[in-house]
C-alpha cells in the first residue's frame, strides 16, 4: 500500500468481519424480525384486516407490507450501524481501528456498508415472508430498490452516529427502541394518513418516517400520502444531514480520540 491511497483492504476486512458477526447471530438478526413480521400479518393483516378490507384499492395486508419492511429496515440499520462502532469502543478494541492506517471514511464504509447490507437482506427476507401471506405487486421495482437502498444507507449512517455518541447501552438503544417504533406507527405504516383528522394529518408531516413509508409504498401500489419525489428529497436531505454530522465528528475526533 503506498502512502496516500485508499485502504480498500481495510474496508473489506471491516465489512466481512461485520457480516461474519451477523452470521454468528443469525437467529437474532434474521429470525426474530421474520417472526415479528409474521405476527404483524397474523394480527393486523388477518384478524384486524378482515374488518378493514381495503385501503386505497389494495387489501389491508398488502397495504401494510411496505410499512412493515420499513419498520424493520430502520430498526435493523440503526441497531447494526450503531453496535458495529459502539462495540469496539465498549470493549476497547477500537485501539486497533485508531492505530491502523485507515481514514475514518474507510471505517465508516466498512461498518455502514455491512449494516446497510444486513438491513437490506432482512428487508428482502421480510418481503419474501409477506408474499406468503398477501399478494404483493411491485409497480416500480427500480424505485423500490432505490428507496430501500437509500433508506438503508441513510439509517445505517444515523446508527453509526448514535454508536459514536452513545456512552452506554441505554443511550445506544434509545433511538431504535424508543424513537423509531412510535414514529413508524404514527408515520402511516398501518393506515393512510387521510384517515386521520386534519390536525393530525398536519402533525404527521413532521414525521420523517411518513415520507419513507409513503414513497416506498408508492413504488409498490402507486398510492402515496405525499408526492414520491418529495419522499425521495426528504431521504436525500436526511442523508446529507447525517454525512455533515459525520464530517464534523471525523474532523474533531469527537468521542474517538482524546
Amino acid at each position, binding site marked *: *500500500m503506498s*502512502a*496516500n*491511497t485508499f*485502504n*480498500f*483492504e*481495510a474496508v*473489506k*476486512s*471491516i465489512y466481512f*468481519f461485520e457480516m*461474519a*458477526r451477523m452470521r*454468528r447471530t443469525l437467529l437474532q438478526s434474521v429470525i426474530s424480525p421474520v417472526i415479528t413480521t409474521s405476527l404483524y400479518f397474523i394480527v393486523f393483516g388477518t384478524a384486524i384486516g378482515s374488518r378493514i378490507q381495503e385501503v386505497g384499492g389494495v387489501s389491508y395486508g398488502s397495504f401494510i407490507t411496505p410499512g412493515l419492511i420499513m419498520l424493520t429496515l430502520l430498526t435493523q440499520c440503526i441497531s447494526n450501524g450503531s453496535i458495529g462502532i459502539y*462495540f*469496539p469502543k465498549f*470493549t*476497547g*478494541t477500537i*485501539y*486497533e*481501528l*485508531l*492505530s*491502523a*492506517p*485507515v*481514514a475514518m471514511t474507510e471505517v465508516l464504509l466498512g461498518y455502514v456498508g455491512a449494516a446497510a447490507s444486513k438491513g437490506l437482506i432482512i428487508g428482502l427476507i421480510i418481503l419474501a415472508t409477506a408474499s406468503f401471506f398477501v399478494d404483493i405487486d411491485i409497480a416500480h421495482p427500480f424505485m423500490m430498490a432505490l428507496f430501500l437502498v437509500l433508506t438503508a444507507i441513510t439509517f445505517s449512517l444515523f446508527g453509526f452516529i448514535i454508536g459514536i455518541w452513545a456512552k452506554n447501552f441505554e443511550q445506544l438503544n434509545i433511538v431504535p427502541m424508543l424513537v423509531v417504533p412510535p414514529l413508524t406507527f404514527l408515520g402511516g405504516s398501518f393506515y393512510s394518513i387521510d384517515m386521520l383528522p386534519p390536525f393530525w394529518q398536519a402533525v404527521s408531516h413532521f414525521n420523517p418516517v411518513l415520507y419513507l413509508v409513503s414513497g416506498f409504498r408508492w413504488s409498490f401500489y402507486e398510492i402515496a400520502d405525499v408526492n414520491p419525489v418529495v419522499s425521495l428529497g426528504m431521504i436525500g436531505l436526511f442523508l446529507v444531514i447525517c454525512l455533515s454530522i459525520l464530517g464534523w465528528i471525523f474532523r474533531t*475526533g469527537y468521542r474517538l*480520540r*482524546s
Partner: protein
Amino acid sequence: MSPIQMSPIQPNSGKPPVVSIRNLTKVYGNGFKALKGVDLDIREGEILALLGPNGAGKTTMISIVCGLVNPSGGQVTVGGHDVVRDFRATRSMIGLVPQELTTDQFETVINTVTFSRGLHGKGKNPALIEQILKDLSLWEKRDNMLRELSGGMKRRVLIAKALAHEPRILFLDEPTAGVDVTLRRDMWQVVEKLRATGVTIILTTHYIEEAEEIADRVGVINAGELLLIEDKTTLMKKLGAKQLRLELTHPLEAVPPGLESFDLKLVDDGNALVHDYASDETHGNGQGSRIAALMKALSAADVPIGDISTHQSSLEDIFVKLIGERA
C-alpha cells in the same frame, strides 16, 4: 559520583532515527498535563525500554506515536513521516500491543489476527499468520473464541495481532504486567527473533529487571518528562556504583595501618570492610590494578578476611535515585 548527564537527544551514527519525538506535549481534555515537552530519538533496530512509575506518561506517549491520541504540541515522525499528516505511512510501519487486555470476546483467534492484517491494508497471507501463531504457541487455539482463553493467552493474541502486518516498529506497552513466567520467556524469544530481523522494539515497563535484561537503551520517564535516555551499559557504568565487601573472621577496632590510602570503611561493628568505587574503574587505565594493589595490601596487613563479595547497583537503585533527585 558525577551528576547525571541530561542527554535526551543522542546523535546516531549517521542513520536517521526511525522515530523522532520533538518537544511533545499533551494536555488532556480535563486540563491534565500528561507530557511536558518530550524529546526522544529511537534508533532503527534497537530495543528501547521506557521505564517509569504509573501515570508517568508512557502510554500517552506511545498512544500519540500510534495515532490513538492527538498531540497537543510538538512533532512526531516515524520513518521520516509526520504521524498526523502522513498517518497512513507511519501507522503501516507500527505494530501496537496495548497495555489493556482488550479483545473481541466472541471472535476466534485466527479471525481476529487475520482481521488485523487486513486493517493494515495487507493482502491475505495464511502462511505468515500460521507462523506467528506457532511462534506464540497459539496455533492449537486458533479456532477458540477469545473468551475461552486465559489472560496470558489473550496477551499472546494481542501480540500476534500486532505482528500480523509485519511492522518495522513494535510497541509493547507493559507487556509483562500480570503475565506468567512461560509467557515472559516466550515473549522475549519472539522479541529476540524480531530484533534479529531488524524490527525496532519499544517496551514500557515498571519492572526494572526487564529493562536490564533485554533493552539496549533505557529511558526513564516521570511526571510527563523524560529524565534521561542512555545505553544500558553506559547507564550502569555512569550510575552503577560498585562495592567490594570484605567479611572479617573477627572484628577490628580500626582500619589497619598501611591501608589508609584505599578509602576503606569499617562497618557492622567492625565485622566487615567496604570499598566503594565506580563500576567503570575496573576497566579504566590501570584502575584494575588498584583492586589488585588493595588485595596485596590487605594480605600484607594480615587482615583476617573470611569472605569477599562485590555488589553492583541495579537499574532499580538507579531509578529510585533518579526519581528521588527530581522529587
